């Protein structure tokens, strides 16, 4: 936790700088106090439980909430300070709301036209045809919002936010209002967008799954303050963070595709001097990919086991281990495969029986991996 009156960071000229001083909102006990820099590229997730202040923070960035004493600037351009308060419609942002929030009196296509007419002509982030093909919305354009499914509406809303040609895209839990099936339908579009966008994206979510799949950087909020921030990959591999205690605790490993076995439907990713096999997708040799490994899918053994169906067996060193404070029967073990951290969730009994200790060389058996992007 930081106190912004004592720590005065250098404001980076090529980032979104936000500082908000301790402010109590309304009658609630909720307060927001933070000082953060959001990098000017990639996807930054604002992650935290509901009520942690992430949506309020996003609305402050957009200028939709102004009652906070805050300083906000993008690339040196001041949006909010003691003397300046740029209204929302003058901020070069795109905003995707939790509910798609399309104009009900306009068709999907007219909703897009609304943005096109008011877009910043000097700044061309993305072309109309690119947006339409990226979101695959061509067949939907003549429909009214009430005729579309929740997922389709959200795709139109994302397209509309892009067509305003923003310098910064803000997304407020765009999947939260959708059921699981629709989420899985939209996630590939978001992954595609996050992968190809040449503008920074701030993505608010309380879903670890979405954050792992989409975010390059993370800012973790709790009760209105920042509790952790950093690169997604580095944060996920730490034991001390809240992620390690999350039921879906995972790490993300990235590497290059070095081998493909079409007859078995497998591709192999190089991690240090070892490889991890995964179910073949559309990747080709030489692609850089990210894989998600859930800690509950990793088990440990002292020696190479013959006769196991588990394909991925990595030689690792135990870097650290910690008993789950909420469930003393379980332990989280941080492993290093060369320099790549992997988390394994095992029972405390097993750790005791195997006499696991820091620095020990063991074999990590990985039951399954999931391909990210």
């Amino acid at each position, binding site marked *: 936790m930081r106190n912004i009156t004592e720590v005065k960071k250098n404001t980076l000229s090529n980032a979104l700088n936000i500082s908000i001083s301790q402010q109590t909102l309304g009658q609630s006990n909720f307060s927001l106090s933070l000082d953060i820099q959001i990098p000017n590229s990639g996807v930054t997730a604002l992650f935290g439980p509901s009520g942690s202040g992430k949506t309020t923070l996003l609305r402050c960035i*957009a*200028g*939709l909430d102004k009652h906070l004493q805050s300083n906000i600037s993008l690339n040196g351009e001041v949006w909010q300070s003691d003397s300046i308060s740029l*209204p*929302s*419609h*003058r901020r070069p*942002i*795109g*905003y995707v*709301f939790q*509910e798609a*929030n*399309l*104009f*009900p*009196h306009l068709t999907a296509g007219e909703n897009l036209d*609304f*943005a096109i007419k*008011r*877009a*910043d002509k000097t700044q061309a982030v993305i072309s109309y045809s690119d947006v339409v093909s990226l979101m695959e919305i061509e067949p939907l354009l003549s429909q009214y919002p009430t005729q579309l499914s929740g997922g389709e509406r959200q795709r139109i809303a994302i397209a*509309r*936010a892009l067509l*305003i040609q923003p310098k910064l895209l*803000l997304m407020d839990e765009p999947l939260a209002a959708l059921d699981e099936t629709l989420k899985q339908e939209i996630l590939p579009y978001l992954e595609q967008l996050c992968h190809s966008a040449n503008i920074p994206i701030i993505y608010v979510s309380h879903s670890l799954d979405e954050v792992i799949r989409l975010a390059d950087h993370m800012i973790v909020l709790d009760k209105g303050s920042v509790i952790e921030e950093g690169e997604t990959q580095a944060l996920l591999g730490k034991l001390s963070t809240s992620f390690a205690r999350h039921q879906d605790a995972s790490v993300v490993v990235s590497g290059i595709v070095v081998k493909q076995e079409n007859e078995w439907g497998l591709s192999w990713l190089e991690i240090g001097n070892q490889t991890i096999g995964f179910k073949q997708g559309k990747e080709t040799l030489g692609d850089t990919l990210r894989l998600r490994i859930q800690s509950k899918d990793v088990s440990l053994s002292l020696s190479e086991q013959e006769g196991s169906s588990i394909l991925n067996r990595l030689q690792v060193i135990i870097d650290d281990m910690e008993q789950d404070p909420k469930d003393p029967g379980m332990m989280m073990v941080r492993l290093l495969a060369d320099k790549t951290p992997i988390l394994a969730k095992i029972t405390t009994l097993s750790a005791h029986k195997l006499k696991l200790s820091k620095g020990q060389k063991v074999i990590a058996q990985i039951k399954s991996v999931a391909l990210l992007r």
Partner: protein
Amino acid sequence: MQLSPEDIDAIWLTLKLASLVTLLLLFVSTPIAWWLARTQSWLKGPINAIVAMPLVLPPTVLGFYLLIFLGPQGPIGKLFDELGFSPLPFSFSGLVVASMLYSLPFVVQPIQNAFSAMGNSPLEAAATLRSSPLDRFLYVAIPLAKPGYISATVLGFAHTVGEFGVVLMMGGNIPNETRVISVQIYDHVEALEYDQAHSLSLLMVAFAFIVLAFLYSVQRRQKNQSVTGSLL
């Protein structure tokens, strides 16, 4: 059906009055409705009450006070006199002013309900799409309030056509100036010209039915939105 030239004059005068009053009211009511729908101020309650008062007051009370205030001895009447305008009572202009007050709630409330029903979300979405406050009012709020405007227009017009008490108090009974249909019917009945009274009364019944039937059919098409709001 027997319509005398005087009856035709009364019909034309009524249509002229109702059209002008409705048109003016749409302009006057829009800012009032917008403010009432969006303000957090404590004044909202009192202003709402003032706007709604013609709904419950006897038209004679309204007409009486208008006569006092707008008459040659009243504060506004004196001002008019000093500025060189002709006095408002017993004139068409006076009737327009009185009718606007009388029909105000019938125009303000449907528009206000429509503005309230749309909530903040579409306007916030527009704000993040580089739409200025005026731009979002014209291209988001007004189009979304269209059902409210339709019922406000119809109700305002119909209610002005149907007024009697205020007209009698404020306008009197001057041919081509203040003698509207309802007054003409009254005259016919007083003179025991029941045939003529029948013709005009039947016209009014048909008019009222057509107007309300139209409103309710619009309302059915706009399923979740009540166009008549809290009025009917």
